[in-house]
């Protein structure tokens, strides 16, 4: 499954400046693993002990994966996965 991952500005230092990447995977976890295979330094920035760090939000097609099945959330061909920092907002 080819999925487009959108990378926030804060992480582009470790993706050679790339703002998006097309990678394979059947779940969000597999998609992220493929992404880490390509950009090695990315893993420790957003993961801690195999889980996402607590201030990292991941969306599939605009939906927060915590409302889906987390890292087990299935993705299909052409889906868009967005990584964003959780720390924003006030009101």
């Amino acid at each position, binding site marked *: 499954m080819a999925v487009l991952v959108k990378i*926030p*500005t*804060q*992480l582009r*230092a470790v993706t050679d400046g790339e703002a998006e990447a097309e990678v394979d995977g059947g779940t969000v976890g597999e998609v992220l693993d493929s992404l880490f295979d390509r950009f090695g330094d990315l893993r420790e*920035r*957003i993961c*801690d002990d195999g889980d996402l*760090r*607590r*201030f*990292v*939000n991941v*969306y599939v097609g*605009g939906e*927060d994966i*915590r*409302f889906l099945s987390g890292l087990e959330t299935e993705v299909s061909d052409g889906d868009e996965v*967005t990584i*964003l*920092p*959780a*720390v*924003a*907002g*006030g*009101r």
Partner: protein
Amino acid sequence: MAVDALKCKECSTEYPLDARYVCERCFGPLEVAYTREQDVDVDGLRRRIQAGPHTIWRYADFLPLSSPPRSALPTGFTPLARADRLAERLGLGEVWVKNDTANPTHSFKDRVVSVALARAQELGFEVVACASTGNLAGAVAAHSAAAGLESYVFIPADLEEQKILGTGVYGTNLVAVRGSYDEVNRLCTELAGEHDWAFVNVNLRPYYAEGSKTIAFETAEQLGWELPDRVVCPVASGSLFTKIARGFEEWIDLGLLNGSVPTFNGAQAAGCSPVASAFAEGHEICRPVRNPDTIAKSLAIGNPADGPYALELARRTGGGIDAVTDDDIRDGVRLLAETTGIFTETAGGVTTAVLAKLAERGDIGADERVVIVITGDGLKTLDVARGTFETHEIEPSLEAFEAAVPTAVSA
């Protein structure tokens, strides 16, 4: 206090004082770090504060700005009113209302926007923007207008009409997004990566958040340089809640105040209570609420950025985070209005209702000095008052009046 750097709250990595808000190493939130001063002349510092303007700028020493700030709108130094009738109604000893409806755009958001805009101008930004549930929208639009800066304000399309009208009037670029606040916020987080704009609650968030400390400074100064025992405050993102505590902590550390950080009670609406739920369940992080459903729209953040820190503060100080229903919120608005003459928006209804709940539960000691933070004006959410009272419509005659209107007992 000299401003030092931006520092990650999670891993302590330091960054220069520019427009950034997230740690590139661990995605943790960045916060302004100050150099701690030794041997502070406490009396001299108090005198200097007291000689300052009757705005938040009297506390400029404790804000993250490099030059003396100027702003056309006088933010802050709002009244702290002793609310004996409210205390009596609830069987409490001493209750004070920090009345932030008395700000230029009638909410506490003037504080955070004043600081963020001053910093945005220092950093050379010409365009200011925000994601908002309404109060922030009005504040950004007004302060940008006063400063002569272009602004973009993003709001959920279903916002109260009073807040939309009270924002558009300042001549901002008003963008109504078909979605929840969290979706508006996500859009702005993406936009902040693409445009060189100062998003006050995204890329300027570390500076913006510091503005909320001034509520603590004012409260302590207005209490005669003393700490309250307990603070009851609304929780949306959790930023206001945690920064009020930080304000007290900074002054305790400097020796300006004696004692310990007050007990902190957070107030949420049951229709959007990710922090109260996590508190009740003993969790350290909040499970986001997908579809917030409450009349307290200014608190309807389903994915609170500072949720983990709000939980930590409530637990550390022996307080809590409680949620109240929409009916409780309406009752809270009425209770505050009837006993203090202060008309609050729904968020203040949430806060007053939580105060009532704590009182009823016996959580508040008879000798406690309690401060409740009323963050916005009732004129912003007028619909909540509709249908809660009776109007006597009569013909213009004495007889009609005597027949229709019950006469006051003492008359």
